[in-house]
């Protein structure tokens, strides 16, 4: 008996909600707004963020890596028409990437920590830089 009452109450609430929803829907659909009250909003389109023209990314080496080989290979990608200059504590070298923008070169590391800076330069003069710290050590700890 008690259970039946609960079920009936639940069904009644559902029917009530349905009727109220329908009434609200019909009220909204019949409502009209006069043209004098209408405002046309012309939202300005957002200014797109300018993409950086020159870029450089490195596949290897990772930053702060410790290696046990004095010969370090640098592999990366930049704009195809860019010039890359690689600066170390003892030298600077200039290379040019392939037609796809890929580049690869080798360096001889000094003992301990080596700071390597790379600069990519477009023919128009735009530049971007990147740096890596690579440590040469054979010490085991």
């Amino acid at each position, binding site marked *: 008996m008690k259970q039946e009452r609960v079920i009936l109450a639940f069904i009644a609430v559902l029917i009530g909600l349905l009727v109220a929803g329908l009434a609200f829907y019909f009220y909204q659909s019949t409502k009209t707004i006069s043209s004098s009250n209408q405002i046309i909003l012309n939202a300005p389109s957002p200014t797109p963020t300018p993409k950086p023209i020159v870029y450089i990314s490195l596949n290897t080496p990772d930053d*702060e*890596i*410790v290696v046990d080989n004095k010969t370090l290979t640098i592999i990366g990608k930049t704009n195809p028409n860019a*010039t890359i*200059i690689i*600066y170390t*504590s003892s*030298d*600077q*070298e*200039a*290379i*040019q990437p392939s037609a796809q923008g890929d580049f690869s070169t080798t360096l001889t590391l000094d003992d*301990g*920590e080596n*700071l390597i*800076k790379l*600069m990519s*330069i*477009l*023919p*128009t*003069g735009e*530049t971007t830089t990147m*740096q890596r*710290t*690579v*440590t040469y*050590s054979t*010490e085991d*700890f």
Partner: protein
Amino acid sequence: MLILFLTLATLVLAHGAQAASPATPTADQALLEKLGNEIASKTAQLNLVEKRGIVGVVTDSSSAQITLTDPNGNTRFVDVDELTKFSSSTNSSFGISDVTKGTTLGVLGLYNKQSRRILARDIDVMDTFPTIVFGEIADIDKTNYEVTVIKGNGGKTVIEIEDITKTYSLTAGTLVKSGFSKMQTTQAISVTGFPDKQDPNKLMASKIIILPDIQLSYDLNTASPTIAPSTGSGVKLYPITK
């Protein structure tokens, strides 16, 4: 009816829990469990710590810790213990007490990914990284073997060409030996060298690469002179002029 259902559910759950609980562990099981835990702990520890080498400028130091600013501008904390070895090319007895603010150190040690601290095993004083100047040749002084370079920020640097200066030109993707006489105004050049001790506005070039294919087109007329470096006390250093 509801009470009956709840009672039944409680009884079923209690029985299930009893069945799932393990029997009293034997000595072998306890040992296996202990070993498993130790292996898991060691694996986690190994994954958490890795060898790393960093470079930074000292901002603070104490007997057990050094604070550095790395080339990316991040603050790095270095822990020092009795196993940490110190070295310097100019001071054979270099130790933690000799570490002063502004010194560039190279640190090799164990980096903890969780605490983001490095436990130093080797600390050495780094040699000064050469000054890099990239810009356009604004003026060539053939009498004093000097080249004035205008940089992207408008600053000017005078490059002193020494006997030891190596000059190259990047032609068709390869570096070709070049010289002072082949330099021309408006050419882009990359210079590495060290500041002249007598005139900090001048750079003694160790290597120059001329980049004829790059057109920088900096405005040579609006270039401002390079600002003299600060001494840190607010006083600027200027060369003595007679």
